[in-house]
């Protein structure tokens, strides 16, 4: 690990200001992803700002019936929160399907959103990777790409975003609260936080230098059936090949509301409003699931080893919609 300057921040505003004026700076909270990458010298920060003691660890009701989750709330505490278990089951389920008990005790809400891809080539400094070394090329395109994206990728990068939590939050319509270095705060829809790789895969979010995520806000619960279905190579402690987060409401036998997001398919948690619009007002049927999958996968592109994800996404979506509309979970 490269040597770094370790500093502690005593407020979110101070942390943001410190980060705005330093070169090669990283905030550290849980550290479960950052330290892994620092040991491999994929992350080589000159300054590490410890934000772990900031008072951002509360889960609070919002005025409009939603929930504000502090950025330092651990994945364990969020999954165990009574309100999350009752009103946001899809989020609790997503959290519980991720990582291990030890990691969830350390990993934070903000850090989970900003964790880096597990692309083999991003992790392998002997190989080219445009995300790690801009302009060096993408070894995954013609390489071992079983875990890679079929949606949203580019000729420069097909890495996937690894989070489960963010997929559920995307389906729930979450927004992200940010402290800026100038003392102001701003809010971004989670769907606006991430950038697709294009020709700059090293730029993953719309955060500017010094910006610190301070919390995530969930809208009031919408009711309906909530499901998080994760398909992976082993039953526990593995990243998703395909995951589907669904919040589906039925009215008089028809689909009244549909909020869906997908993991394992794209460089960011993936949501497609056309797919949701196509479901609303319709009577559940296998044909409808097929049409929904056609919309989701219209631009899907396999790269060899990950071709199977197209069929797997289609089947997983059908399974989840069927379960949400009355079938078995």
């Amino acid at each position, binding site marked *: 690990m490269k040597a770094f300057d*370790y500093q502690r921040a005593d407020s979110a505003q101070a942390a943001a200001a410190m980060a705005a004026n330093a070169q090669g700076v990283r905030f550290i909270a849980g550290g479960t992803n950052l330290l892994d990458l620092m040991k491999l010298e994929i992350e080589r920060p000159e300054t590490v700002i410890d934000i772990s003691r900031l008072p951002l660890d509360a889960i609070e009701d919002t005025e409009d019936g939603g929930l504000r989750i502090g950025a330092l709330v651990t994945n364990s505490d969020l*999954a165990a929160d009574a309100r999350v278990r009752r009103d946001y089951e899809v989020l609790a389920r997503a959290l519980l399907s991720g990582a291990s008990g030890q990691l969830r005790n350390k990993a934070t809400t903000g850090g989970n959103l900003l964790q880096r891809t597990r692309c083999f080539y991003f992790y392998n400094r002997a190989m080219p990777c445009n995300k790690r070394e801009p302009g060096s090329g993408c070894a995954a395109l013609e390489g071992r790409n079983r875990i890679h994206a079929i949606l949203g990728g580019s000729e420069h990068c097909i890495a996937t975003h690894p989070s489960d939590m963010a997929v559920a939050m995307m389906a729930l319509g979450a927004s992200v609260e940010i402290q800026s270095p100038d003392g102001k705060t701003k809010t971004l829809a989670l769907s606006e936080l991430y950038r697709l790789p294009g020709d700059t895969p090293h730029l993953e979010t719309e955060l500017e230098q010094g910006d610190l995520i301070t919390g995530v806000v969930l809208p009031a619960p919408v009711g309906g059936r909530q499901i998080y279905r994760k398909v992976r190579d082993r039953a526990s402690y593995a990243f998703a090949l395909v995951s589907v987060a669904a919040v589906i409401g039925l009215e008089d036998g028809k689909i009244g509301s549909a909020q869906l997001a997908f993991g394992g398919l794209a460089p960011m948690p993936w949501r497609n409003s056309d797919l949701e619009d196509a479901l609303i007002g319709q009577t559940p049927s296998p044909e409808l699931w097929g049409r929904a999958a056609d919309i989701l996968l219209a631009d899907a592109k396999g790269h060899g080893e990950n071709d199977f994800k197209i069929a797997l996404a289609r089947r997983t979506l059908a399974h989840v919609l069927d379960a949400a509309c009355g079938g078995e979970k």
Partner: protein
Amino acid sequence: MHLTLTVNGTEHALDLDPRTSLLDMLRDHLDLTGSKKGCDHGQCGACTVLLNGRRINSCLSLAVMHEGDEITTIEGLGEEGKLSPLQAAFVAHDGYQCGYCTPGQICSATAMLGEVEAGWPSHVSDNLEDQPQLTDAEISERMSGNLCRCSAYPNIVDAISEVGGGRK
């Protein structure tokens, strides 16, 4: 960098390079070699310790971030002739072959039983709001962050189940 923290009930004052992991601090600076370094990347669980009562991977945490914290390692759970219930159960059920993962398994299981008691659900819990039952499937899921190269899993589950009152 100066650091004061409590390990197994004893306060320690240390001067550490900020890069030092909590695991390396325990092993190299305090000679507490019970916590093991397997992968050093949070994948195997051999380094599991309790941080203020919660299980974490000590390899993925900077020691300097633990000012004032209380750490418990396998050495703090029991001692020769006075084993903790889980330590005794691992011996009784032969929950290991080589033993390298065992300190992490026992630290992890110690905290895991507390998580179940606190009502935390898991990925395999049917209902998120009911008190979880300590079935074998629940134990396997909740212990998935601790790998055992010798694959002593059936005996590890037996040991944990006995202590946690799983099979009534």
